[in-house]
């Protein structure tokens, strides 16, 4: 007996919210076997589940351990569904370069932001942790990114964020990129001080900020 398409997508979304990686894999395989549209399954199943997990995170129902487990389930499903996306569904996505500034090797926050941005439809280039300022600029040029997202957990590395903006100014390309910042010691005041385009307090908020910065509504992504 085959379940309906919508019902299957709903189950997929539930499996992600419930942090059930095995179930997500099984259901993703079923999408492929039943020849449903993989892109739609990602959108209405996996990404929807991650979106709901993000809401639970904002409502302080879920915290970082839960969000990380949901994302494991989502990525496990993505691994199965991605090869089955039809070519004409591969729309041009807005690109973001993300990384943790030099001096800091903590990257939980950055990973969460990356996960949420990806599940919201952005194409994310992750430089990793402990990244010198110039590398952000080089990568953004190379991949033609719209946004540079900078993260840190350590007060001593906050200056690196200002340095990225200085480099953009010096190279007279500041207006080509939006710079967003976040992380434990960062505040809106700090973002304003260094001339960043935006600050977000958490991963879910970062998605809204990124959408605002590229000027798109959620549906248009």
């Amino acid at each position: 007996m085959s379940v309906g398409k919508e019902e299957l997508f709903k189950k997929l979304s539930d499996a992600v919210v419930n942090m059930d990686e095995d179930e997500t894999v099984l259901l993703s395989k079923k999408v492929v076997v039943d020849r449903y549209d993989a892109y739609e399954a990602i959108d209405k199943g996996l990404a929807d589940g991650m979106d709901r997990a993000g809401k639970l995170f904002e409502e302080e129902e879920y915290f970082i351990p839960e969000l990380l487990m949901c994302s494991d389930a989502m990525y496990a499903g993505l691994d199965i569904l991605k090869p089955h996306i039809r070519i004409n569904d591969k729309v041009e996505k807005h690109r973001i370069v993300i990384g943790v500034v030099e001096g800091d090797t903590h990257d939980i926050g950055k990973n969460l932001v990356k996960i949420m941005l990806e599940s919201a439809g952005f194409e994310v280039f992750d430089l990793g942790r402990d990244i010198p300022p110039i590398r952000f600029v080089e990568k953004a040029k190379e991949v033609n990114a719209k946004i540079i997202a900078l993260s840190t957990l350590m007060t001593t590395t906050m200056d690196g964020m200002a340095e990225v903006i200085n480099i953009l100014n010096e190279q007279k390309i500041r207006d080509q990129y939006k710079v967003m910042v976040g992380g434990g010691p960062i505040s809106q005041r700090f973002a304003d001080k260094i001339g960043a385009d935006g600050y977000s307090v958490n991963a879910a908020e970062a998605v809204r900020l990124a959408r605002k910065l590229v000027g798109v509504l959620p549906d248009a992504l």
Partner: protein
Amino acid sequence: MSNISPKERILRVLNKKKVDRPPVICPGGMMNAAIVDVMKSTGHTLPEAHHDDRLMAELARDVHKYTGFENFGIPFCMTVEAEVLGSEINFGTLACEPKIEKEVFDSVSEVVYQDIGQMLKKGRIESVVQAAYHLSRKNTDVPVVGNLTGPLSTSASIVNPVSFLKELRKDKENAHKVINYVTDFLIEYAKLMIDNGADLISIGDPTATGEILGPKMFEEYALRYLNKLIDGIHSLNAPVIVHICGNINTVKQFIPYIRSDAISTDAIINLRALKDEFPSITTMGNLSTFLLQFGTPEKVGEQTERLLKDGIDIISPACGLSTSSSIQNIRALTKTVKEHREYGRSSFLPAQQVH
């Protein structure tokens, strides 16, 4: 009471006894005040002082002397513990603190348990302990604060933190085993510091926050092992300060159950309100580190006055300081607190000083 020494003052506050005015301290470790301005003027510099006991003691003395903070605080990083437990450390530079280059284990199930006695002979433990000794011998009036990286943060510094956080849910048995082992090690390390001159212990545990863990995990892991560590230190008759990072709202109900002698919080927390809600706790904090870096001495002075007026028990920066914080701003903080005593004794109270 006017001749009370800084050491006596903080020990009295931690013992809930009356004092002339609050102490103003910067504990060290995660919250250290080894700023570039100080190091450049004395030549006792990091990263060298992370290793050498005499240099570490000299730098702690410099910080005390130049900033006016009423304590010596060692070490100047959060990596002593993780290094001994096996992780690879990058010792940073003059302006950039050390960090974990790579956690030694990928999962809580892979942790190799070492003999604690052996570990205490490794890494920089001896340097920190010797520095405590030098500091306590030379200036007996100034309290020596030994700093620990808390159980969860240390655990997340030896196990990949992303795996670690997931395994707090997925592999509770091994997660408990690892954190318990780390806590046992921390107690023994604290014991060495106390035996060699540390007057009190300050624990910073930035991974153990409500924002990261949520209330369930905070209670199951953070509260449990912080208290185990605190009890271990109390059994050596030394007081303990615990610093909780970030917004504590989701875990506020557990704060009175942390058995430390003082609770320090981030700038986001209204300490006055926290005190009103839980009159039993001794509060420490929480001057904005943003202000210390970017503000003016006048602004710092005003905010310090506010903390004094709110009756905060121990005045300190709210979190880790930027190494580029200005010495003038830090002095404005410590000076304002120290002059508070004068108000208390003077018959000419400034008009705004209503207590």
